[in-house]
């Protein structure tokens, strides 16, 4: 175990190496370039392979090939690049192949802007590519979580044989904080008997997503769905801050949750019973945990750096019996803690 002072992107790349990353492919796009830059320098030292692809489309498909060979694979990009990868993500899902896809989000639609954004919540959580599938989504809010959660992301991806989205943002990715490197000696990666090994086994292995005969596709999709139901039961991560006695609760994820934590501290000093509910996995969404809060607290404020995307998940889970306010910032200017407190006061005090 080492204690380091790192940028979020470096912590993520280091975490990926400690998790046993053996293949990375990516294409340059701001603001995630320090991830491929770090890995082009460091990955080979850990016995992994780095390749700069000709496009995000090629990068995600290189992952598909390397993942079929059983390697732990990752790519990183930013919003427009992630749009280009959606086809490949859908094929990874259909082919039951693990892969970790890091999105350091920027603005859209279109070329948008390169500042901090949470505009890709829908894309990440509601499918993205074509077909009836889900991908688990992790949302870090500190440099330590960039390290910890990327390792978790690889484990979940391998365990359930599906692509995982790592939804980071500019603030968490580019700020520097102390990090405890818990697994500097690496972790044990489970063997993958389904993957192409060094030699053909007794039986031919076919990795595919095309099912034309009879009810094959139906059985396949039920199998994928069953796995997803298991994830909903077992893989939810949530962070509740000062929620036990809270009369008002802010619901936020990623960098906004980090800001809202300070809002809670300021509010508490002023005697306002404010709490913060932060989903760490956006898929599966911490539905039960949020429902439980509604037994004691009836006032909520959802804050996002978009026009209200996670808002609909909160409304879906809590229903109409509670008050749900929304504060959205569809630009690169993050809200200040005071700004959020003013919004709380305006709505509920």
């Amino acid at each position, binding site marked *: 175990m080492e204690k380091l002072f790192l940028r979020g992107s470096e912590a993520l790349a280091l975490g990926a190496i400690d998790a046993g990353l053996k293949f990375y492919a990516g294409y340059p796009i701001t603001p995630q370039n320090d991830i491929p830059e770090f890995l082009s320098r460091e990955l080979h030292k850990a016995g992994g392979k780095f390749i700069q692809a000709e496009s995000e489309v090629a990068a995600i498909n290189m992952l598909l*090939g*390397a993942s079929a060979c059983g390697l732990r694979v990752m790519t990183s990009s930013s919003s427009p690049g992630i749009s280009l990868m959606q086809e490949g993500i859908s094929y990874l899902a259909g082919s039951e192949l693990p892969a970790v896809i890091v999105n350091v989000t920027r603005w859209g639609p279109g070329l948008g802007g390169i500042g901090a954004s949470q505009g890709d919540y829908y894309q990440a959580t509601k499918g993205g590519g074509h077909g009836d599938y889900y991908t688990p989504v992790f949302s870090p809010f500190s440099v330590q979580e960039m390290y910890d959660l990327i390792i978790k992301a690889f484990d979940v991806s391998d365990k359930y044989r599906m692509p995982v989205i790592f939804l980071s943002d500019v603030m968490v990715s580019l700020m520097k904080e102390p990090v405890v490197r818990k697994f500097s000696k690496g972790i044990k990666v489970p063997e993958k008997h389904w993957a192409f090994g060094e030699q053909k086994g007794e039986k031919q292995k*076919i*990795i595919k997503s095309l099912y034309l005969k009879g009810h094959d596709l139906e059985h396949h999709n039920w199998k994928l769905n069953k796995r997803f139901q298991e994830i909903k039961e077992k893989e939810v991560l949530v962070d509740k801050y000062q929620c036990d006695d809270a009369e008002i609760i802010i619901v936020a994820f990623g960098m906004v949750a980090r800001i809202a934590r300070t809002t809670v501290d300021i509010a508490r000093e002023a005697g306002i019973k404010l709490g913060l509910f932060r989903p760490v996995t956006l898929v599966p969404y911490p539905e039960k945990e949020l429902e439980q809060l509604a037994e004691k607290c009836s006032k909520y404020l959802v804050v996002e750096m978009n026009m209200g995307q996670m808002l609909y998940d909160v409304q879906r889970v809590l229903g109409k019996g509670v008050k749900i306010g929304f504060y959205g910032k569809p630009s690169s200017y993050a809200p200040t803690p005071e700004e959020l407190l003013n919004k709380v006061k305006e709505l509920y005090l």
Partner: protein
Amino acid sequence: MKMVYKKPDVLKDVSFHFCPGCNHGNAHKLVAEAISQLGIQDNCIAVIGVGCGVFLYDYIDVDSLEAPHGRGLAVATGVKRARPERIVFTYQGDGDLAAIGMAETVHAANRGENLTVIFINNTIYGMTGGQMAPTTLLGQIATTAPYGREFQRDGYPIRMAEMLATLEGVAYSTRVAFTTPKQIIDAKKAIKKAFEMQINNMGFSFVEVLSACPTNWNMQPLEALKRVTDEMIPFFPLGTFKERSVSDVL
């Protein structure tokens, strides 16, 4: 009685689903024969593009991976880099390799990925029912070029084997056909050589196969073969456009 000829073991005991007169069957058989003769069945991984060839794994008994349409050579790049000790080939049609997958094709070739490509050029989209392909000849009728391909609207057919031969990373680029026994023997040698190139770490090896598609050309099988000779070969000449004797790697 002495056995003098039999199908390669690598080919499974099932009937092809291909239409009468289609050359996919010939190509499958020659690929299987090369794999068998080189003793690389246990080593081989097939990366299969979207098109009539997508069920290759039903016929050829090697580990197989389906690529999204056009992405075969990006997928194969991932496979080969992950498992450099294995022999990796793609099997792709003209829509797959030369239209939607052109970027992946050119860049994999240019990187000199040590891969083998079997490229089936039948000047048409076969599986989707006869639409215009990047290789469709001028004047050729397709369901999306009902009056014939016209260069001012549709551009010209692409000669992939010649184009890829210009790239440094390419070790071997050749074009073959199946209209005469001599051509089939040449095709067999070319496909085997392409695999040998990979075994010897020479870099990217590419075999373009001119293939008949009687169904979508609206022809009888023999007419279709005649069309390969009369119309395709004059525009897509047979022969080897590049053949390296020394590898960059060694």
